[in-house]
């Protein structure tokens, strides 16, 4: 899935990827998708948890070309 905003958080430890997501989701319109590329094991749990706590939609995960997981979030509010 092509995202409207790609966040490269490779090498960042928790909670930095989620902080980056929170700071920058406002850069896309409601209905658009942000991708967080993260090598941090905690992101697999914390991105979905962030979506649940902040009322955004967790779309799922797709690998980047280098195999790093991209966590996809749709802005719904």
């Amino acid at each position, binding site marked *: 899935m092509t995202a409207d905003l790609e966040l490269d958080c490779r090498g960042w430890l928790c909670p930095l990827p989620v*902080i980056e997501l929170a700071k920058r989701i406002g850069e896309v319109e409601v209905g658009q998708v942000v991708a967080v590329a993260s090598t*941090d*094991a905690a992101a697999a*749990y914390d991105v979905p948890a962030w979506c649940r706590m902040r009322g955004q939609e967790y779309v799922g995960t797709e690998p980047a070309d280098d195999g790093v997981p991209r966590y996809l979030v749709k802005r719904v509010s």
Partner: protein
Amino acid sequence: MGPRTGSFRSVYLDTASSEPLHPAARDAFLAALEQGYADPRRLHGPARNARLILDNAREVVAEALGVRRDEVSFTSSGTDAVHRGLLGLAPPGAEVAHAAVEHSAVLHALAWRPDLHTRSVRVDRHGRVDPTDVGVPDVVALQSANHEVGTVQPVADVAVTSDRPLFMDACASMGRLPLPDGWSAAAGSAHKWGGPAGVGVLLVRKGVRWRSPFPQDDRVDERVSGFENVPAILSAAAALQAVVAERDEVSARQHALVDRIRARVAQVPDTEVVGDPDRRLPHLVTFSFLYVDGEAIVDALNRRGFEVASGSACTASTLEPSHVLAAMGVLTHGNVRVSLTRDATEADVDAFCAALPEVVAAIRRDAGLPTGEAL
């Protein structure tokens, strides 16, 4: 024990890792150090003293837990009791179903036996197993209560629906809650109820098919190995007896204090209080703060005199987040586990609840987030 002016006094909030020695345990330990040095297998006077102390400790533990004397063994740790209790129930090639949130001692024991077929049973958002998910494996491993989030598991229900030998890791609850029905073997850890470290309790129900998974020894008790630490065992038994005697009063007080913490913490923005609010250990509560580094919050609270634990990856050597929080599908970073001493006061709890929002706000501000405001 209010805030820290003048002489610095800290509030210990990590009894789920290790409880301070109970006064009853200290007295028993000192007395037994004088009397319990000899080999309880020998026949001379000092040996008979040691054997008497050991038998007395077994009797006390059996009575405190409501089990038979011959069902009680003393191990060298809670972990050792978990390993023996679980692996002793599992014949070669057995299918073992375990809750996804079991203690790592259970998971490591299973991984050590490549012949076993293990199956992880999912949990709900509170960390509880649904008995209908367990199925009918050869052996079930289910904790009495979770060590990180406090949720009590439906052990008796699972025992009925699976109708299979059930190993119960009771390390988090032993002494604090009565043992549920349904287990075939169980484990406890003395330093978690106010006894000394280095003593575990292994319970094996009479009539259960259990075989030691480790080399035999020629000691007092064939289920365990090594020279008995008689003074520490008596001390552990004395602490358990005292804790059970005080349980109704202490648990009710701790339960109410934890309710107070849960309510106050829930008011901090972007916070998740996890674990079952009601069916839980009396003394323990866990919560996670969005955007907060687990190590940073443990350090900041420690500087203010509050000693807590965290299940966040940034506090672990592995960089892996807590498998318990992950299995529950809750936030894994910014995690704090608070567990109360038996004499924790409302003033301690209120001081902690007053400091916490300030600490969280400061860490979020350092991360470049607006203070106290939802992002």
